[in-house]
């Protein structure tokens, strides 16, 4: 029962919602709109994939939005001001963000602190560092950027599957495989089920914690690069609040916030649902953008209440043991 029922519900909500949208605005049901939806939410999909791992392991990472912001500024400055070749800049920033995540994971494990507050400090740190680099928006004019932005696979019906959408899809598929088929993935679930239990079963809890936060920050770094492709600029205020959007996507996708249960596919569907709400509001034209927030909040509540119910049902026959969410 590893997260299957909630994912089905998420899928149902997505399909039903999309059908409703399509009835009202027939134009929504085109590959063009779907292609744009994937492009617009590419960075969110990537970052939410990393967040899924963190949340399944029983943690949370509030720093991802700031890491995206820092990445865009760093990449823009490196390419435009410091004359670093784009590829080298990408490698440098990915190494940097991975190290940042590893440091947070190490602090969480070694000092036994709540992940929430450590990553909160990380969020301040990364955002502050990006402000220090530059408070202005830095446009990126490197030829790689126009090549990547122009690249797109044509879909039937005139839709374009852009390069950044492809990157997102590849990472989502990679995330699914990593979580489902590898020892690492199994350990993530074990950690979320209970740290001491996992430790007794032979999981190297410390190493895993470091690796999980490293993965999340690394993906946030990739999302930052994708974001810079998307906007062709680096700006220290970009992606403010993305951590909440990605947590919302993970929860709507049926991942248990207490850890131990969830899936990357569900998260992907959660990202699509958020994108769909946004698209609907754009199509409608009379609704204001704040309805996105309210709708997301309502969905969050509905899914968490549902989880709460499912957990209560699952726990009933089992003897009560703290932390054992099977």
């Amino acid at each position, binding site marked *: 029962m590893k997260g299957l029922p909630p994912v089905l519900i998420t899928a149902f909500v997505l399909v039903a919602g999309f059908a409703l949208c399509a009835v009202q605005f027939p134009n929504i049901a085109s590959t063009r709109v779907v292609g744009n939806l994937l492009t617009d939410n590419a960075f969110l999909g990537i970052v939410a994939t990393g967040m899924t791992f963190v949340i399944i392991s029983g943690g*949370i990472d509030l720093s991802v939005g700031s890491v995206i912001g820092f990445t865009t500024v760093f990449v823009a400055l490196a390419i435009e001001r410091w004359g670093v070749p784009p590829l080298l800049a990408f490698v440098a920033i990915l190494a940097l963000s991975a190290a940042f995540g590893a440091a947070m994971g190490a*602090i969480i494990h*070694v*000092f*036994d*602190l*709540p992940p*929430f*507050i*450590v990553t*909160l*400090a*990380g*969020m*301040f*740190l990364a*955002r*502050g*560092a990006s*402000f*220090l680099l530059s*408070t202005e928006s830095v446009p990126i004019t490197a030829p790689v950027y126009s090549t990547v932005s122009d690249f797109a696979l044509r879909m039937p019906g005139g839709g374009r599957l852009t390069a950044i959408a492809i990157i997102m899809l590849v990472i989502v598929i990679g995330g699914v495989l990593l979580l489902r088929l590898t020892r690492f993935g199994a350990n993530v679930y074990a950690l979320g089920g209970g740290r001491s239990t996992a430790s007794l079963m032979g999981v190297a809890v410390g190493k895993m914690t470091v690796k999980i936060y490293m993965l999340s920050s690394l993906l946030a770094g990739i999302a930052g690069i994708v974001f810079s492709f998307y906007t062709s600029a680096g700006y220290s205020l970009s992606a403010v609040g993305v951590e*909440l959007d990605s*947590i*919302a996507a993970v*929860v709507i996708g049926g991942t248990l*916030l*207490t850890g131990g249960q969830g899936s990357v596919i569900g998260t992907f569907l959660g990202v699509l649902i958020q994108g769909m709400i946004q698209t609907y509001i754009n199509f409608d034209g009379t609704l*204001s953008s*704040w*309805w*996105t*927030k*309210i709708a*997301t*909040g*309502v969905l*969050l*509540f509905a899914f*968490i*209440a549902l989880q*709460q119910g499912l957990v209560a049902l699952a726990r009933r026959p089992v003897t009560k043991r703290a932390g054992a969410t099977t």
Partner: protein
Amino acid sequence: MTALLPRRGLAQILALIVILAVDRVVSPQFFDLRLQDGRLFGSLIDVLNRGTPVALLSLGMVLVIATRGIDLSVGAIMAISGAIAASLADSHGLPVVLAAALGAGLVCGLWNGFLVAVLGMQPIVATLILMVAGRGIAQLITEGRIVTFSSPDLVWLGNGSILGIPMPVAIALGMLILTGAVVRGSALGLLIEATGGNARASELAGVGTRAMILAVYVWCGVCAALAGVIAAADIMGADANNAGLWLELDAILAVVIGGTSLFGGRFSLVLAVLGALIIQTMNTGILLSGYPPEFNLLVKAVVVLAVLLLQSPKLSGISGVVARLRGTKP
């Protein structure tokens, strides 16, 4: 732990003195006070005035954290109550405006408390819902515009003064005394600490843990609403997008600096407010020193980490650090 000002807190007071001294070096006029039109002016008063919203938030937040909870929605509640106050200010009297705005905060707190105490959700998650949706609700009230008002009553709440003290500071002080009297003057504080220390054991011992949790979230909502009204009165308008943005983090930081453990079970109201003042003194100092305000975030991050490491269960205080350095490294 019965007195309002506990024996601990020396570190916080020292920290405040050090930061004040640094501010004095950076800006020689820092301690100058002058009385003008029956109101005190000066950098110190400015620190108190600007620190008010976070101080009010931390008053509610500290009780929530004492029960092992957290309230992420206070910023959004500020936006909602500010929006309500601003939209009603010109058509209704002050009592109605205050009742409506604080009532909204009460309802928000009740909602959070219901989710945590009755449905048993994790506090981070339960309050995340209102954090996401609340700002949307605030924008719904203001219809996406920045609502301005000119009601002199409400403006007085943000810019007036009483006995020379700016009104916001007087309100915050009043709330601190009220909260302290209610919580420490009765067994309530002890019961809240018991709930945070071990909810199950407390429940078996006869503490109404559900009622306690519900009550602290409601109080947190009311405090946040009051902060929202003051913030709106200060700028004579309500901006649903930016009112109280990121202040939940400052409030949590203030509580943590005040030595209240995130693991629940003990708290200090006075030190939490002191924490809010420390944050504001730092902010003002950075502004006065001419460094870009962006430094604020970096400094805050370093301060949080330092305080957290000292609070860490694995290192109890400085002695722990020393023992660790002496060779018990992992």
